[in-house]
């Protein structure tokens, strides 16, 4: 089997493995939920003296939710390995860094996001449940990449033949992945915060099973504080490259314009975060909007506008 075919196989494996992890995470939610309701109903139904001791209840029945959660993390680990395999094989097949078109770009950026997530989930077990969002995003992104963006392996067009290609695109991939890893806790913070304020409609009902709002808010900040300088560097490197390729370091090409917008929004996030008078809910919403601008730039701009950055390989 050729390397490019191997890559194509592995992307299917990775997508399906993320899907399994997603199902396990969903099971984690529903099973731990059921156990709680069962325990509660026993207590209520017992009426007078407590017949069932809560201690015995938990030891007698295994916490299947937690088991599913642990499995979900292991399966996510496998998916990340397959994900790494697919981009590595792709890079080897093309004899270059595997982000020369949008298909490869989405695969690489989502890999960074997943790897950053895995690191977080292992070092901070209390956030593990956020995996349900991450695996969902991964399944959607990989499925979208495989079905809509797929492009045959080919060498780079002359405009991309520059060492700045490696510097610029690598850092853009890394910062996009980290922004994704920051968006997840920001969204979860909003859900948990809504739950804490007594909201009872759908997304907020999930809030009870999430880590504390404060922990997620802090995690959001740390991810963004890490990603923002990398993104700034990536845009600067892009400007230096643009000077060599197109003769000007900044020309308000649609990609550049949206990178500018993202940069401004994330700068706004960091400023709002450091201003005590700004409500943390507003701060989290800015992070969510920031992620939307990043997605707009990575995907929307390629479809809606034509510009100099038209290497996506989509018609």
């Amino acid at each position, binding site marked *: 089997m050729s390397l490019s075919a191997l890559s194509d196989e592995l992307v299917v494996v990775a997508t399906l493995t993320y899907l399994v992890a997603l199902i396990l995470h969903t099971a984690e939610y529903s099973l731990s939920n059921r156990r709680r309701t069962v325990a509660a109903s026993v207590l209520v139904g017992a009426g007078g003296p407590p017949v069932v001791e809560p201690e015995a209840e938990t030891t007698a029945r295994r916490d299947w939710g937690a088991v599913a959660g642990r499995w979900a993390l292991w399966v996510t680990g496998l998916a990340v390995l397959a994900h790494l395999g697919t981009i590595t094989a792709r890079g080897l097949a093309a004899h270059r860094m595997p982000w020369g078109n949008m298909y490869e770009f989405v695969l690489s950026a989502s890999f960074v996001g997943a790897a950053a997530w895995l690191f977080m989930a292992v070092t901070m077990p209390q956030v593990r449940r956020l995996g349900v969002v991450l695996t969902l995003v991964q399944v959607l992104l990989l499925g979208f990449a495989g079905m809509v963006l797929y492009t045959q392996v*080919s*060498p780079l*067009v*002359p*405009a991309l*033949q*520059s060492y*700045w290609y490696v510097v610029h695109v690598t850092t853009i991939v890394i910062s996009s992945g980290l922004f994704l890893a920051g968006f997840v806790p920001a969204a979860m913070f909003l859900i948990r915060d809504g739950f804490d304020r007594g909201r009872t409609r759908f997304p907020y009902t999930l809030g009870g099973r999430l880590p504390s709002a404060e922990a997620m808010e*802090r995690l959001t*900040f740390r991810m963004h*504080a890490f990603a*923002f*300088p990398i993104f*700034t*560097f990536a845009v*600067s490197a892009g*400007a*230096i*490259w643009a*000077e*060599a*390729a*197109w*003769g*000007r*370091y*900044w*020309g*308000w*090409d*649609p990609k550049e*314009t*949206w990178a*500018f*917008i993202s940069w*401004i*929004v994330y*700068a*706004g996030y*960091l*400023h*709002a975060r*450091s*201003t005590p*008078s*700004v409500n943390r809910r507003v701060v989290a919403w800015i992070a969510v909007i920031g992620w939307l*601008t990043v997605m707009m730039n990575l995907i929307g*701009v390629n479809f809606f*506008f034509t*510009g100099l950055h038209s290497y996506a390989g989509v018609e």
Partner: protein
Amino acid sequence: MSTLAAFVKAKARNGWRQLTSMRTALILLVLLALAAIPGSVLPQKSVSPENVTRYFREHPDLAPVLDKLGGFDVFRSPWFAAIYLLLFTSLIGCILPRTRDHARALLMRVPDAPKRLERLPAHHRGETTHGPQEIAAALRGWRRVIREHPDGTTTISAERGYLKETGNLVFHTALIGVLAGVAVGAFGGWHANRLLVQGPEQAFCTSVQQFDDYRPGAWVGAGDLPKYCFEMTGFRASYLDTGQPKSFSATVSVSGAAARTADFSVNHPLRLGDANLYLLGHGYAPVLRYTDKAGQSQTTVAPFLPIDNTTLTSEGVAIFPDANADPATGQTSPSEQVAFAGLYVPTAPDSGTVASSVFPAENNPRLVLTLYRGDLGLDLGIPSSVYQLNQNQIATGRLSAVGEAKALRPGESWTLGDGSKLEFVGTRPWITVAVRHDPGEPIVLVSVALLLAGLMLSLTGKRRRVWVRLIPSEGGRTVLVAGGLARSEYPGFAEEFTGLIDRMGLTERMGGEEREPVGALR
């Protein structure tokens, strides 16, 4: 009068305070991001003027309104400028007092310990046999001040992480540097485009008349351009079997201050110091020789412009305004001018019509031309494109197509009805180049480097203070009370504080009393 002055002063101060508040800065940031969106949605004059023209054609009612509002030139529009200038004013209003405060903090001694250290987020109480000098030694790397008080106690104040604020100020000041660099480039820079066909007679020099499109900054006069002449001596392109380009490069010989012959390509511009030459595009220029019925021949090199960039199917015209001159008098008749318009197809399909190319290289070239005869309209004094015929002349019938289109291979001739002859000699490559100079670039580059350095310091730095109070107790023992706080986001401060207390290595448990836990605010 004085009350009015006071009123104005109060208003101005209030306004300034409003403008420089973080809230205003945040609103301006949001506005700036929103204002940039139309710049990506609408075509921009500075990016793609041809798309602006198309937008005008497609939306004849809306386009003039948008144009008035600056919608096709968002980043140079007054409202966009208003937002960023306000933002930068707000920024300066923020930087100046903070720089002053930071300079003061750097010059001043660390303030003395507050009365009740146990109220601080991290604190500790114990006993020690060591003196203030030894305690201070444990705080190496911190700015330290030892103060002895009249009541016999000694306090050690320590602070570190000043680089955080330094970085913060450098970052924000560097933003002003970026804006200054952009402004220097916009006023003092210039750029021009030119289509350059291979061959010595096609060379051009850096003068306003010889550029196709010249955009000088406000400070640039025509005499300020450096003197260079460029002649293209070679062009190479290679493609994959799929038609995807692999490489382009051109060779030019430069005469002028820095005479040389050099290759340049996409991503590798030719840098001459006071001007850079960038390779932007390329195409083919058919060479055509027309021999009129009197036997006079003329040759023209006509660049055809690609209508499809992936296969280089190109469109263009070749005009012969001096054809059919009277051999006796040399007079030309405007109604007997000759032109050819059509397509150049670098690789025609093996079968079927030659309507479009299947590959960008010249594997099976064809030139498909239609003859036009009549008045080309060149003497009307109206500037017109050299890449297409005057459509008005055709519409009014003064210029008309004659006969069927004809496909020619290189070297082939076409004998026309009146006995004249057109010969397709071959093609020459052409390139489009940008010649540019931007004196603001070094300013922007240095500013961006400072900006990044400042950003890293600002985001990774942690400002924190620690105080230790030594209180003499009975029996020659000394009670040690320590407290500390992080002045910025720093979840690991509690651990660092514990580490510091351990490093002091000096405390022992007070008799009977439990050692108070070292705890951060949880």
